[in-house]
């Protein structure tokens, strides 16, 4: 009865928020309904035949969107928390919107739930998913989550308490999530595990060395099925061709978006697709029609000029974006970088000093310049996967620097080797965009933080350069 009451209340709030156009109804219905029926998520989600949860710092939305697109193309009916609302209330809101008035969920084959790194530890026991995906664990807004070590340790602790029989999919190329393999070994009845990685590429975290040493020094090599992507060809801003070796075979795929991180996201989706026993041969065609998550990589035309937007929100994500852009930069191109410090961006902007803006110019990051006398055997070589970085220091890039923290960002670029004589500092984003597109010869690359991206989308729609504000 409580469940029905909670659903009715939730549906009422959903109706009101949509009717009054106050927010998209992605959090409030769940928030209040959970107060009436705290077990709402477990009662509703377990009616869905299969559930998948996806967690990690970067790529949750892209991965679940990509997966959703691929499985829907195979006529699987999916349900997912689509608007980036990845706490329990977001999951609850989606379920409330999809259930009938009596609390029955019908007509869905698969639930795809992206979960915040911390929310994972509670919500996973509500959903009890058949598949769990761990994408990566980077430093991201530490002021909100505590520390990366703790995030990974909490995942282990949660996995040790798992009393059903899920399959884990972990990023074996991330030195933090790779430790999750080890959970496998602990039990008499080990969790099944799939691991994916990109050949010759490691997402390296120095801090995870201690995790490995301390917790796993006495453990045997864990067993898992491996999915390996080998990069065959870099198509620049058009994406790349990869060959994927998986337990039953090998397939060549053209990933139509740039950036190494998209290979990881795709691999995660591929592993799920494989577990669901869907036909691998159909993947390529379906992937072609995939558009990446809102704004994370976006190409539009402004007065016939190409404008590319890449979200940057933490050092690891920013570095992969910079590695993608470095070989692309040409004379006449411009950069617009915007840094905000709103809650959704993280109020601490220190992270820009951990992001290697030097990569854009082809310079060395500070970590590479510091001498060390001992050999880090597994430390990967820096540079892009495809080639050495290109020297862009002679290009007159004239960065336009914007956002609430434009001053901090300007300093960062100066110390990264950009010539500050060519800086335009314009905290107002609309002015910055005007200035960036005025008399533009080449292309414009925009790197905004999260709230700057939202603001930018609004401006582009108002100016008629884009039709839709939020494409979900």
């Amino acid at each position, binding site marked *: 009865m409580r469940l029905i009451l909670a659903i009715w209340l939730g549906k009422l709030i959903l109706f009101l928020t949509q009717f009054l156009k106050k927010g998209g109804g992605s959090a409030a219905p769940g928030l209040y309904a959970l107060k009436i029926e705290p077990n709402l998520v477990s009662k509703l989600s377990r009616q869905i035949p299969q559930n998948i949860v996806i967690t990690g710092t970067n790529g949750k939305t892209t991965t679940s969107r990509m997966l959703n697109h691929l499985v829907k193309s195979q006529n699987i009916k999916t349900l997912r928390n689509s608007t980036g609302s990845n706490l329990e209330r977001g999951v609850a809101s989606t379920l409330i919107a999809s259930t009938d008035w009596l609390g029955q969920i019908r007509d869905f084959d698969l639930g795809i739930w992206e979960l915040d790194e911390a929310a994972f530890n509670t919500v996973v026991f509500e959903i009890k998913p058949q598949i769990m995906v761990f994408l990566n664990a980077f430093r991201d807004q530490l002021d909100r989550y505590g*520390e990366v070590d703790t995030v990974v340790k909490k995942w282990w602790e949660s996995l040790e308490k798992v009393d059903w029989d899920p399959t884990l999919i972990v990023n074996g190329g991330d030195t933090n999530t790779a430790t999750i393999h080890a959970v496998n070994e602990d039990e008499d009845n080990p969790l099944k595990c799939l691991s994916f990685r990109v050949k010759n590429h490691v997402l390296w975290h*120095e801090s995870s060395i201690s995790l490995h040493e301390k917790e796993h020094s006495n453990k045997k090599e864990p067993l898992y099925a491996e999915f390996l992507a080998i990069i065959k060809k870099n198509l620049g801003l058009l994406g790349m061709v990869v060959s994927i070796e998986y337990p039953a075979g090998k397939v060549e795929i053209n990933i139509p978006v740039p950036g190494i991180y998209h290979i990881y996201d795709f691999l995660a989706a591929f592993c799920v697709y494989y577990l669901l026993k869907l036909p691998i041969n159909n993947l390529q065609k379906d992937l072609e029609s995939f558009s990446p998550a809102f704004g994370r990589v976006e190409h539009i035309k402004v007065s016939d000029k190409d404008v590319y937007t890449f979200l940057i929100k933490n050092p690891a994500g920013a570095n992969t974006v910079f590695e993608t852009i470095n070989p692309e930069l040409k004379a006449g191109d411009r950069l617009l970088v915007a840094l905000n410090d709103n809650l959704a961006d993280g109020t601490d*902007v220190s992270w820009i000093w951990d992001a290697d803006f030097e990569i854009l110019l082809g310079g060395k990051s500070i970590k590479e310049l510091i001498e060390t006398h001992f050999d880090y055997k597994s430390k990967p070589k820096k540079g892009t996967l495809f080639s050495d970085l290109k020297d862009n220091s002679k290009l007159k890039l004239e960065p336009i620097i914007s956002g609430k923290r434009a001053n901090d960002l300007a300093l960062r670029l100066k110390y990264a080797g950009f010539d*500050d004589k060519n800086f335009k500092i314009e905290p107002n984003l609309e002015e910055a965009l005007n200035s960036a597109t005025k008399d533009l010869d080449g292309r414009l690359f925009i790197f905004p933080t999260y709230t700057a991206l939202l603001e930018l989308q609004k401006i582009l729609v108002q100016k008629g350069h884009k039709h839709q504000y939020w494409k979900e």
Partner: protein
Amino acid sequence: MKFSLTIGHLYGLQMNTYGDNGNIITLKKRCEWRGIDVAIKYITYVDEIKEGDYDLYFFGGGQDQTQALISRDLTGGFKDQVKKDVEKGVPLLSICGGYQLLGAYYQPQKGPKIGGLGIFPIYTTASSERMIGNLVIDLVSDGLEMIGKLVGFENHSGKTYLTEGGKPLGKVVKGFGNNGEDGTEGCVYKNAIGCYMHGSLLPKNPQLADWLIKRALEVKYGKKIELEPLNDGLENQAHEGIIKRFVD
């Protein structure tokens, strides 16, 4: 005469979160812009330091788990030279976790005390309160007060208290500082500074960066040194911008 400096980055491979590398970048660039040769080296577990190896030390923040391991190394005698160098006047900048580990000890919520190197007369206790936000201080320490204010960003749950003879770096204008209780921030001993200021600290406080470089050169070459002034327009603008937005 061509000057040169060697900067030792204490446990830089383990302790490098919260943008503290920005301090290293800043020291390096500001030396290079003046034609001062600079080498930066990581100092890690078990590394023994010899007299004269380093002219300036940096010790940043890191994750709790790593700090216990570092404590064992620090208290195991491997880094006693750092203490001797500081006595001699070699400048040092430590932040957050690094600052705590150079005090007497850190008392976690559970478990035994984590020993420090004992350079600063301070101790730190864990609290359940996370002190996060922009931090602005007035410098009160002798020889530094002419710099005026420092701006940074703090993020810690450890509360640090000065013990007898401990001199604070500054007085909190905005934020929590050492413990959120007594209005002090950081500690100074000779030319060694400990504080809770991430941000990164030195890019937006170029005068402090130059103070460290100048002191390092003076101790190394044994004479008074004046640094060539740099164009700090952007640096000062960023510094003032924080004060304007969060204090005025």
